[in-house]
């Protein structure tokens, strides 16, 4: 149960003179739900961007299932089984819900552009479509499959981003503020949903989130960072009672944090 999925080792990211992430280390094991929390601008998304290859860390290493992936391109890392959603939703705006999810399966193709163009990959294409359909039913978006992605209500767009990420067949799912903009009821449903897909798809989940109820409700462990540095880690109960966390985060941000 404690098989290591993601190990980040002394990660540092500097932009010019600004240190966005400072000497950050963490471990995530198979089957866990781990949360990364911290005040705005603490460097959470930057950490995600280093894990997914958007940024190459200034110092440190990212290990995925024991393999060093530091400096690899985002598409390579996704192929290795890491999928993500974005804080500010980034759907393929000209496509339908169905095509958004279908496109995310492109990376698992065996066809090349010639076989695909001349329809010699019909079997594979049919399989991709069947998988997409099954996935959409799973996340309860099937009825909306022919809608344009950007015409969906906000909550559904967040859901679609998760479905699209799942379509890449990840082992590790990174969620960047999945509950942003959701009301308490939707947030609660999202929590249940995350747990459900974790079991269903045999995932490990790593999420950034501000909604403390959600974080405390579903996380096995929590990392807290501030100004790019880790200030605490542990189970939800441990973190909640950690004075450093209360000082840096919960204390000042209670109104927003504990909705």
């Amino acid at each position, binding site marked *: 149960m404690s098989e290591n999925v993601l190990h980040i080792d002394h990660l540092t990211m500097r932009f010019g003179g600004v240190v966005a992430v400072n000497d950050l280390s963490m471990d995530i094991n198979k089957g866990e739900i781990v949360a990364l929390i911290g005040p705005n601008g603490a460097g959470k998304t930057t950490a995600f961007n280093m894990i997914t290859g958007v940024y190459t860390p200034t110092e440190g290493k990212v290990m995925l299932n024991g393999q060093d992936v530091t400096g690899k391109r985002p598409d390579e890392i996704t*192929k290795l089984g890491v999928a*993500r959603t974005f804080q500010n939703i980034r759907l393929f705006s000209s496509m339908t819900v169905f095509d958004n999810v279908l496109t995310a399966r492109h990376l698992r193709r065996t066809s090349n552009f010639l076989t*695909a163009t001349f329809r010699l990959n019909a079997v594979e*294409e049919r399989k991709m479509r*069947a998988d997409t359909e099954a996935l959409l039913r799973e996340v309860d978006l099937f009825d909306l499959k022919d809608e344009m992605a950007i015409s969906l209500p906000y909550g559904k767009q967040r859901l679609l981003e998760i479905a699209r990420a799942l379509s890449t067949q990840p082992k590790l799912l990174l969620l960047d503020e999945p509950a942003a903009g959701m009301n308490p009821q939707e947030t609660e449903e999202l929590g249940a949903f995350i747990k459900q897909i974790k079991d269903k798809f045999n995932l490990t989940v790593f999420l950034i989130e501000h909604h403390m109820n959600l974080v405390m409700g579903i996380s096995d462990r929590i990392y807290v960072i501030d100004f790019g540095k880790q200030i605490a880690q542990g189970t939800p109960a441990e973190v909640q009672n950690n004075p450093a966390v209360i000082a840096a985060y919960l204390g000042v941000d209670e109104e927003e944090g504990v909705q």
Partner: protein
Amino acid sequence: MSNSLTKKKIDSATIISAVIVLCLYVAVFIAEQFIPATSMLFTVLKKGATYALVAVSMNLCNGFTGIFSLGQAGFMLIGAYVYGIFTIPLAARMDVYQYYNGGLVQFVLPWFIAMILGGLAAAFFAFLIGLPVLRLKSDYLAIATLGFAEIIRALFQWDKLGPVTNGSNMLRLFPTFNDFNVRGAEGQVTVYLSTLVPLLIAGVCIGVIILLINSTFGRALKAIRDDEIAAEAMGIRLASHKRLAFCISSFFAGVGGAMLAMYQTTVQAKSFTTAMTYEILLIVVIGGIGSVTGSCISSFLFVAASEWWLRFLDQKQMIGNFEVPLLRNGFRLVVFSIIIMIVVLFFRQGIMGTKELPDLIRNWQRKGKGKEATSK
């Protein structure tokens, strides 16, 4: 229901579209046998077919992948030259390459092979130029590809390459569209094909592009256009997919260049200017960036208007004793420019937006059904 999804359905709208296109081909074939070959209609169809292919190929890059390339004229030039160089009959070479002692190339390829070779050469150059420039952001890419087209234009006019390219002199006497006509024993034309064949070539090429766009690769390209960062996060390798779109687009631009050579009957590097690229870009914009149907319609309209319907704007016109003001050489292009600016500023969707012919038919079908429902 689930079956219709897993196997992408070929619905009635797609079939109707295919039938419409087929009918157009039959109509052209019949028209060609009965209407005199000198009719402007055929000029428009031939040049229109050429432009349609080039416009669709540009749309693949600029519209579907979001790579703003302005190298189209350069790739057409390569295609046109390769076609010309390898198809001029040996007997005519002394005449064409008069300053270069008959030229260096002393063999002839069949027109079809030469045309494909033209496309491949263009794609090869696209691959080379793509290595440095495809990493650039949209506007830098535009200017870099534009610059590339200028370099190609200079290179093909270089005196030292004269034995191959004929320097700044024109290539001519290669097979043209008129050679597609079937001739009888005395040289009289028995079956006219000089319009149908170019339309078929363009049709097949555009068909392949449509197949690509609707394949899993086409979806990946659209994903890159919509959001590069999200596409990359979904495992789509940006560099290889962009290169793919760029090379395929250039391949068909090269084939289009070969067609242009056949249409014009001569080729000269200096005519493949930036203005030509701009013209094709504007055709794409008028048709709708991201619509193959739009690019085709707009190509034929553009060619028809510039070669035929609006020609009168370039000549003095008298209504009784009254001379219509403004009409003289060049006025047509002014009218054109104004139309284009109106489209660019106020009708940014162009004729078709991102819709295709089957989408239109589906809309009509839906409306028809809606009416039936309300009448019952």
